[in-house]
């Protein structure tokens, strides 16, 4: 059974002429035990897709099964088997760390005597050993995020959904969360996460989907997506040679030396299967500096979703 199956999902906000279609025919099928990353720029519809999947808002069209149960009809039963780390922290500021876990477990109908013995273990998992009685206000942003992760595990979920779990965290906190998520997948928990960070997706995800404007533009393993959507090598070119910047250089020469070239400000990104002729050409123009590297997920992301700012 797929932990989450979405087909033909459409979500519109508003009615009549003001209606905005935010999710436009999205299909997604999670494989049990995998870590799946949903990548997309701001406003792509990631959070909206998750809210639909959890039955927190009604889909305008399409069908959803969460843990094998139809949503929204049986969303409540399905959510009993899912853990959620929402995009915005929603810990209870009136409670300590331990109380946050106990009270949240209460919403799943789990009795205190069952949950209390597990609290040290849950806090340790989140790197919050001994913080039972700490107040939420005294926690750093990273600690809050980790406590939210612990909270999402109180019901021992089959599927863990994380909406931008590491946005705003320092590298230490990000690495700890990644390590814990790997441990969870190793134990058989399926993970669905959204992120803006390509490295996060590349490291964690068995499969990923890049979405923009409510549609999935590419889907597969990180390697597959890179192979299918972009030339394998990139040369980034910047600087100036004989009064000519990278943009002017690209306009004159790029088409002859690489398959595809994108100019962003005063940097040219040349995509190619064979960088040798291009590098030889650049060697003649020492003022133009360059960086030669393999193409990565970020290149695919920018190719598919464009380089313009979203908001």
């Amino acid at each position, binding site marked *: 059974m797929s932990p989450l199956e979405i087909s033909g999902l459409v979500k519109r906000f508003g009615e009549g002429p003001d209606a905005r279609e935010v999710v436009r025919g999205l299909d997604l099928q999670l494989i049990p035990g995998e870590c799946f990353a949903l990548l997309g720029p701001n406003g792509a519809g990631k959070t909206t897709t998750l809210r639909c999947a959890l039955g*927190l808002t009604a889909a305008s069209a399409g069908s959803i099964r969460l843990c094998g149960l139809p949503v929204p009809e049986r969303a*409540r039963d399905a959510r009993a088997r899912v853990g959620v780390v929402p995009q*915005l922290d929603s810990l209870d500021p*009136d409670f300590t760390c331990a109380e946050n876990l106990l009270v949240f477990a*209460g919403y*799943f*109908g789990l009795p205190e005597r069952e949950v209390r013995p597990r609290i040290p273990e849950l806090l340790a998992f989140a790197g919050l050993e001994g913080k039972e009685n700490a107040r939420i206000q005294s926690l750093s942003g990273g600690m809050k995020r980790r406590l939210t992760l612990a909270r999402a595990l109180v019901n021992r979920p089959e599927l863990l959904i994380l909406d931008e779990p590491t946005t705003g965290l320092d590298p230490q906190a990000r690495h700890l969360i990644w390590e814990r998520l790997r441990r969870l997948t190793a134990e058989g928990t399926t993970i669905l996460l959204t992120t803006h960070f390509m490295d996060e997706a590349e490291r964690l995800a068995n499969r990923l989907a890049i979405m923009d404007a409510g549609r999935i533009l590419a889907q597969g393993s990180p390697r597959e997506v890179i192979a299918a959507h972009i030339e394998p090598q990139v040369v980034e070119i910047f600087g100036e040679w004989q009064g000519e910047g990278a943009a002017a250089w690209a306009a004159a020469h790029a088409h002859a030396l690489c398959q595809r070239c994108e100019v962003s400000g005063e940097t040219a990104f040349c995509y190619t299967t064979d960088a040798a002729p291009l590098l030889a050409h650049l060697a003649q123009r020492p003022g133009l500096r360059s960086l030669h590297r393999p193409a990565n997920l970020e290149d695919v992301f920018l190719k598919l979703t464009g380089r313009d700012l979203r908001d």
Partner: protein
Amino acid sequence: MTSVTSHFAPPRLSLRLLAVWRRNFLVWRKLALPSIVGNLADPVIYMLGLGYGLGMLVPEVEGVSYIAFLAGGTLAYSTMNAATFEALYSGFSRMHTQKTWEAIMNAPVSLDDIVVAELLWAASKACLAGIAILAVIAAFGFAASPLALAAIPVIFLTGLCFAALGLIMTALAPSYDFFMYYFTLVITPMTLLSGVFFPQGQLPDAVRAVAEWLPLSHAVALVRPLLLGELPTQAGLHLAVLAGIAIAAFWLALGLTRKRLLK
């Protein structure tokens, strides 16, 4: 699927709503004493100040001392205030500022459960505050009859009624500032017109005809005689009006909250 009719469909509830009620209770328990004193101090000071001060000028109202007259009104309006404050400010902070409701909805709890739990909690808290005020009133000797205990279910119902009305405001509020209008335009005039501080007989006929239908008037009409050791007249009517307003207001509040949060 997101039509107006579905927003105003009857609630679908589960016992999980008790966990939500309990969450609010546990927070309250941490600060129970200051909370009760806070709910208690203002009305008791007014009651004693006005009761003994004005009481010197107004020897008797409807056959009892002014302060004995004031006691029932005080209990009723302070219950209204406690329920209203909880549904407005605390409710809004849980719904909007702290995102507590959003967190809860990720568990197997529905928004319907949450809104009913908030209703019951605001009424419970108002009732707890009311019991404390009743104890003070009794200590001063203005609730001598055992009939005064019958005021407790009445204040719970009063709490439900005003919590439900308050939740409508919470569902509509863009920010905390919005609640000032509700207090200035609804709650304060209602307090003055519902026979809390003076008998409604003093009002001009036209005003009185309207004022008698205000929910607080019905609460006062029930609570005051009970504290004076008498059975209220037309008790069934007053109870029915309070219950009717509570149900209608809750239905509207739930629909508006669903519209706000589930879109």
